[in-house]
């Protein structure tokens, strides 16, 4: 079984649309993250949740809204998609906030046309 799974793997959509990416982890971790990796492979954290509570919220446009219905899930909803949102989005989880061993999903490649 995949430890951190995110869907869809590929997402192609037009500007202005609203889309969601789902993430689930079956590791029993209490902390989950969303990272964005741009075309130059630069990886930057967007959000971090611990026990369903928002812990880290980096300078991300408010078009991006994470939702954590329970500890095992952290979904990412994006409104009014823009060309610059095209990237690979990675979900990750860890046990505890200060645990640097992150387990990553395989990524969602978002292409905004």
């Amino acid at each position, binding site marked *: 079984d995949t430890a951190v799974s995110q869907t869809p793997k590929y997402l192609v959509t037009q500007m202005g649309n609203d889309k969601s990416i789902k993430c689930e982890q079956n590791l029993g971790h209490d902390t989950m993250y969303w990272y964005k990796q741009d075309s130059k492979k630069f990886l930057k954290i967007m959000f971090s949740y611990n026990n369903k509570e928002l812990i880290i919220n980096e300078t991300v446009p408010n078009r991006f809204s994470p939702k954590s219905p329970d500890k095992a899930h952290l979904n990412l909803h994006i409104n009014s998609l823009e060309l610059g949102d095209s990237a690979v989005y*990675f979900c990750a989880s860890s046990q505890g906030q200060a645990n*640097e061993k992150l387990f*990553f*999903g395989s990524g969602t490649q978002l292409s905004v046309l």
Partner: protein
Amino acid sequence: AQSVTQLDSQVPVFEEAPVELRCNYSSSVSVYLFWYVQYPNQGLQLLLKYLSGSTLVKGINGFEAEFNKSQTSFHLRKPSVHISDTAEYFCAVRRGASGNTPLVFGKGTRLSVIA
């Protein structure tokens, strides 16, 4: 603010040759340092980390890194690489142990092992 600089964006190396991937960090306080590896079409995996203690850290797959405080470096090394080591390698830093300070990643170094 803390930042991570990976000086080489690409490193080609022949199979069974040694390799060193360079990483420098900047921070005014003590930091925790990490190396992650990303294989094609996969998420990142932790290779090794330095939190405290011995400055030479051994990780998975035969990799090791040395923390050098005076040079603010945390270079990754492997004495003999394999084709399967071809991947993107990311150095990362966290300031202190607080979970409210996120991991900051470098821009990555693409290691290409040539047969």
